[in-house]
């Protein structure tokens, strides 16, 4: 199981399998966020866990005894194969079977999607993308046929989507936007009315069954667009009904009057409701999508996550390659023959491009629609040119068909060149995707591998070594303090109580931990004693060269620690050197050299020779010789350091028996 979040999902799935659904639904976890605890039943999206445990139970019922860990590891690839099928179905609805096949082939290997669906990536996105494309397929089917049963199926698929990922907010805004666009382009018909109203009403009450969603669909701004369009649907349908049954003059007068009154009333009521607080404003995470600078200025936690950074052009090409170029082609062909379904994919692609540009992690939402558009583009290009591939025998047939096709010189030769070019593009796409997958998205990230000097592979298994040490050598009720990144892995593998984890739901608590890490030893000791900490864990990359260690994350700890009132004594500028740079050598400020994090990372490091020709205590990640070498720890004692010094665990000393000695 890779990364951090999947460990939490794995732990909850184990709990679900061992204790049953009621226990899972009502689970209060006291081993995380000490001393606050976490209501797991009410703060997760259970779709992933329920899916995995259903598959596990079904297989075990048939006496295929598969371990729950294996089910979890292989769930994402299984669902990505389902995604391939649904993408084919969706593109077939929008265009034709040929485009569907190309799109399906592309989504099968595109790196943007593979990043979240490798075996071991047991995360919500693994099934969420399948649910999302399934919901979109059923929505297009419903809007095309106008049948109640398809709309009902769409609502049920939407329920599955809501249960699996917080990104369902994208769906509940995209479908109303689509309906709205259809309204203003004059394509609103009975079919759309039936499809949207049923999907919305059934979907809303279904979505409220998930405890984490609760009453949000009627109380928060993120869902108000759907409600607004629902109301608008009723009004437009009623207006169309009146228009059919009244005389034109009377209708015009009534129409204008009601329109002005209605719009004013609706706007006023929404405004008053938001002002009075009845409708919650956009929450931080989603608001930062609309205003990217909001998180940076106000919520350091959201800004610190590397997945939330804006996407670079290199990332776009890396994750999508050919799709970046074929996407406008598909968009053009969609515009050429506008249908309701085409308008949907156009709106979907434009909004996804915007959001993928704001946050790197939303590249995942962009990948499927890119595949669909590129599938349409490539399929239409190929079919256009393949029609021109003529041999001598075909000439009489074109006379028979009397097709008014423009004829230009060397038509057949150009066609064969184009077909070859597209073939070469597709081949390079495959090479690129397989290379990217093997290089970038295959590492489990809990076990690291590097090439040694002789070309052999060195495995760094420090994380699991340290977590297992914790599991077997510390009392069961011990509390471990670390930065929030490692919380999920600690609870899942070391099975100890932790203070903060990746859920990051309580900013003040994380800020307290940040203060403990950033303050000098004496001050940290009071904080650690206040929080009942027994062990402290840090990640250090100075010897192995592992660059995602805590010293590199230290600036964020300082920022978050200083963002609450108790951290008023921590200010970011204190931790820079005289010249304003972030350094750990002799030039570093005293606040930096005396901080608990510095001391924990570099304890006894001053005696270590890391590289030839460099002095002892040479940090291989920062490429500097550390400034504070010979120091003793007053309030901690070293408990464990892993083989390559990546994980270091310290025990917090008890208070003195006699005070002030």
């Amino acid at each position: 199981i890779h990364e951090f979040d999947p460990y939490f999902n794995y732990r909850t799935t184990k709990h679900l399998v061992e204790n049953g659904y009621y226990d899972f639904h009502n689970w209060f976890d006291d081993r995380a966020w000490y001393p606050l605890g976490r209501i797991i039943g009410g703060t997760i999206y259970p779709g992933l866990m329920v899916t995995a445990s259903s598959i596990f139970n079904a297989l075990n019922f048939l006496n295929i005894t598969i371990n729950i860990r294996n089910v979890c590891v292989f769930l994402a690839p299984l669902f990505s194969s389902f995604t391939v099928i649904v993408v084919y179905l969706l593109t077939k609805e929008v265009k034709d079977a040929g485009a569907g096949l190309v799109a399906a082939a592309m989504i099968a290997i595109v790196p943007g999607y593979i990043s979240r669906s490798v075996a071991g990536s047991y995360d919500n996105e693994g099934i969420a993308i399948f649910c999302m494309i399934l919901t979109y397929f059923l929505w297009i089917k419903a809007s095309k046929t106008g049948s109640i049963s398809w709309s009902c199926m769409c609502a049920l698929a939407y329920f599955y989507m809501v249960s699996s990922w917080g990104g369902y907010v994208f769906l509940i805004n995209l479908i109303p936007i689509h309906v709205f666009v259809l309204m203003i382009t004059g394509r609103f018909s009975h079919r759309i009315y039936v499809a949207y109203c049923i999907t919305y009403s059934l979907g809303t009450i279904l979505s409220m069954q998930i405890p984490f969603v609760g009453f949000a669909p009627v109380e928060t701004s993120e869902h108000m667009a759907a409600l607004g369009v629902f109301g608008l649907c009723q009004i437009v349908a009623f207006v169309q009904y009146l228009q059919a049954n009244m005389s034109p003059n009377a209708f015009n007068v009534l129409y204008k009057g009601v329109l002005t009154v209605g719009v004013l009333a609706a706007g006023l009521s929404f405004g008053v409701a938001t002002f009075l607080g009845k409708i919650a404003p956009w929450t931080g995470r989603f608001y930062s999508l609309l205003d990217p600078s909001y998180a940076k200025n106000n919520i350091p936690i959201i800004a610190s996550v590397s997945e939330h950074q804006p996407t670079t052009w290199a990332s776009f090409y890396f994750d999508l390659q050919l799709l970046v170029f074929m996407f406008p082609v598909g968009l053009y062909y969609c515009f050429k023959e506008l249908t309701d379904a085409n308008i949907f994919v156009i709106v979907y692609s434009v909004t996804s491009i915007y959001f993928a540009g704001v946050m790197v992690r939303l590249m995942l939402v962009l990948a499927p629609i890119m595949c669909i558009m590129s599938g349409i583009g490539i399929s239409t290009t190929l079919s256009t040119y393949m029609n021109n591939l003529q041999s001598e025998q075909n000439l009489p047939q074109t006379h028979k068909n009397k097709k008014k096709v423009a004829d230009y010189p060397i038509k057949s030769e150009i066609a064969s060149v184009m077909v070859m070019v597209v073939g070469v593009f597709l081949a390079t796409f495959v090479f690129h995707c397989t290379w990217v997958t093997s290089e970038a998205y295959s590492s489990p990230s809990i076990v690291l591998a590097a090439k040694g000097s002789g070309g052999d592979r060195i495995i760094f298994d420090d994380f699991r070594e340290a977590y297992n040490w914790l599991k077997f050598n510390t009392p069961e009720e011990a509390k471990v303090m670390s930065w929030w990144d490692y919380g999920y892995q600690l609870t899942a593998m070391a099975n100890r109580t932790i203070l903060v984890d990746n859920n990051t739901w309580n900013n003040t608590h994380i800020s307290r931990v940040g203060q403990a890490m950033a303050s000098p030893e004496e001050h940290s000791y009071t904080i650690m004693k206040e929080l009942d900490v027994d062990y402290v864990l840090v990640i250090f990359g100075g010897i192995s060269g592992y660059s995602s260690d805590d010293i590199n994350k230290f600036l964020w700890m300082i920022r978050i620690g200083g963002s609450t009132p108790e951290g008023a004594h921590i200010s970011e500028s204190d931790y820079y050197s005289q010249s304003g740079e972030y350094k750990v050598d002799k030039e570093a400020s005293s606040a930096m050299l005396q901080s608990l994090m510095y001391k924990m990372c570099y304890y006894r490091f001053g005696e270590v020779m890391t590289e030839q020709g460099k002095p002892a205590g040479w940090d291989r990640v920062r490429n500097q010789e550390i400034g504070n070498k010979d120091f003793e720890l007053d309030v901690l004692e070293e408990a464990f350091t892993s083989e390559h010094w990546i994980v270091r665990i310290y025990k917090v000393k008890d208070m003195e028996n006699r005070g002030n000695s």
Partner: protein
Amino acid sequence: SEYSAKTPQKLKLIDAYLGYIMLTGIFQFAYCCLVGTFPFNAFLSGFISTVASFILGVCLRIQTNPANMTVFKDISVERAFADFIFAHCVLHLVVMNFIG
């Protein structure tokens, strides 16, 4: 009037049903305004039940209206009614779960 003369019997039946559903919805909403929203999930499930039943009734009427035959070519009256029943099963299952 034109309505009584031109509308088929089946559609008039659906219209009467819709009127009844609207009344129940209005009563529930008025009660909620008077007495307060606790327990909110019970109010929501009851109110959404009326709204969704109304919508489903309207959709059934649209699909069985002979004037709309061109739009709903593939959906026979029997199919429309069967879909209506299916959607109602789903709706009431959820309402039962949510009403608390």
